[in-house]
């Protein structure tokens, strides 16, 4: 599939445009020419089986894979040659699959660690409103939190920074249904607040409740783009890709 920039989205310049993206870990070639785009204010998911290359795509956007090639343009800036700290400062924030909570930092330190890179981030109070659990555990060691709380902390800490685009890698993985719901509400709230979100999900039923569009990945390629509204019609096709 090769979607054009001025495809069905009325020719707007995309917020994030990925073209011909290749990535390697050492000798192993993992992404083979990925193309997709995300528009400002959209929630877009990457779906696909384990090992399809979703995480690698996010890491390539952030500039933290071994080697990458192709083009990643964010807000008009080509980032393929930039170090990850410069990419982050353009307004991209990453919440990794393994959450990346620091054990030598307490909850408060974890929450305030990412530097503010632009005005317009959420206040700490607003973050506590979204995730009240965090407020009660501020002085606990970061990794002493439950899995759900660690995920809240991992999302919460990137909301302060003023980054307008969030990359969330499997934020609901392994969490209890109540917490999945809470994270779903948070994502919808963030969309209302104008955040642009690229979301990796295994659980496309969850994805369908928050996303505008979905890209399906397989073996390091993007193989389909599905609008959320078309999801029902194309269910068979998606099931085939995801092997569910």
């Amino acid at each position, binding site marked *: 599939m090769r979607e054009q920039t001025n495809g069905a989205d009325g020719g707007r310049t995309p917020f994030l445009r990925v073209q011909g993206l290749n990535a390697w870990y050492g000798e192993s070639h993992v992404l083979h020419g990925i193309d997709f785009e995300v528009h400002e204010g959209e929630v877009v998911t990457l779906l696909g089986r384990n090992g399809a290359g979703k995480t690698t795509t996010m890491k390539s956007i952030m500039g933290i894979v071994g080697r990458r090639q192709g083009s990643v343009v964010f807000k008009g800036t080509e980032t393929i040659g930039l*170090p*990850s*700290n410069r990419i982050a400062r353009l307004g991209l924030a990453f919440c990794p699959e393994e959450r990346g909570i*620091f054990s*030598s930092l307490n909850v408060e330190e974890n929450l305030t*660690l990412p530097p503010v890179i632009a005005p317009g981030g959420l206040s700490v109070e607003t973050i506590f409103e979204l995730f009240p659990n965090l407020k009660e555990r501020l002085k606990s060691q970061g990794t002493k939190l439950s899995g759900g709380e660690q995920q809240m902390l991992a999302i919460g800490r990137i909301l302060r920074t003023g980054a307008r685009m969030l990359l969330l890698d499997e934020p609901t993985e392994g969490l209890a249904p109540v917490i999945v719901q809470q994270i779903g509400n948070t994502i919808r709230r963030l969309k209302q607040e104008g955040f642009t979100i690229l979301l990796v999900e295994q659980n496309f039923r969850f994805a369908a409740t928050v996303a505008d569009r979905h890209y399906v990945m397989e073996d390091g390629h993007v193989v389909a783009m599905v609008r959320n509204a078309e999801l029902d019609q194309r269910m068979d096709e998606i099931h085939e890709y995801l092997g569910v």
Partner: protein
Amino acid sequence: MMTFTIFGVSSVALFGQLLLGLINGAFYAMLSLGLAVIFGMLNIINFTHGAQYMMGAFVAWMLLDYLGIGYWPALVLAPVIVGITGVIIERTMLHRLYKLDHLYGLLLTFGLALTIQGLLRNQYGASGLPYAIPDELRGGTNLGFMFLPNYRGWVVVASLVVCLTTWFVIERTKLGAYLRAATENPTLVQAMGINVPRMITLTYGTGVGLAGLAGVLAAPIYSVNPNMGADLIIVVFAVVVIGGMGSILGSIVTGFGLGVVEGLTKVFYPEASATVIFVIMVIVLLTKPAGLFGRNA
């Protein structure tokens, strides 16, 4: 002066050795602290550390001998100069080795230490150069139970302040939070917008500067000698192993503690004083391989 005896040892001898132990401990603590910080961030065992301590003393001596700059300005200038040489070493050499095995960093820093020592020995000989105690700290104070040379008291206090300040910065400030986080997961910290490579360079410069500062403090006590670091650093590595690589508080407590243990051994069983630290190291390695304060990997 009030004197008494304990287990047949006079109190004067006891407190004298305790003080010597504290002084040695102060140097162990300052040096192992720098090693711990550097190891945490760079994953390199900095074998140049002893040579950099020696450089601190030499730079202080040169500042005085060639430029007439005295002890107090040297206390600031020498660590900065040694720190800058550290920054240059990191930028031009060490940063190429991070992706390789620990062993390469160890070999490079060991080679650098030998080179620096060799060059200075060539130029200034191995017999040692005198460096006078600053006027303000000459003489001593009668504490009632012992006579305390003022300069030695100053070294203990100054190194405690340096150690506790370093601990505070690392454990209680924002900068320290970046440092701790980057020690755990540098990739993620950089992807948050922090210039981690620059942080690594500055960490090495600061750690090495700390060794330089210890060297300036040492200059009036020991003669300024190209080998002064080589003799000390072996014991410091034992201290680091006992305390646990990478633990800040561990380095401080173990440094001072082992200095005192060594001093007491000199009083009660002098034959063992040169080996007691290594015996403790062996026992710790056998029973608690991560060190007394180390986190198990």
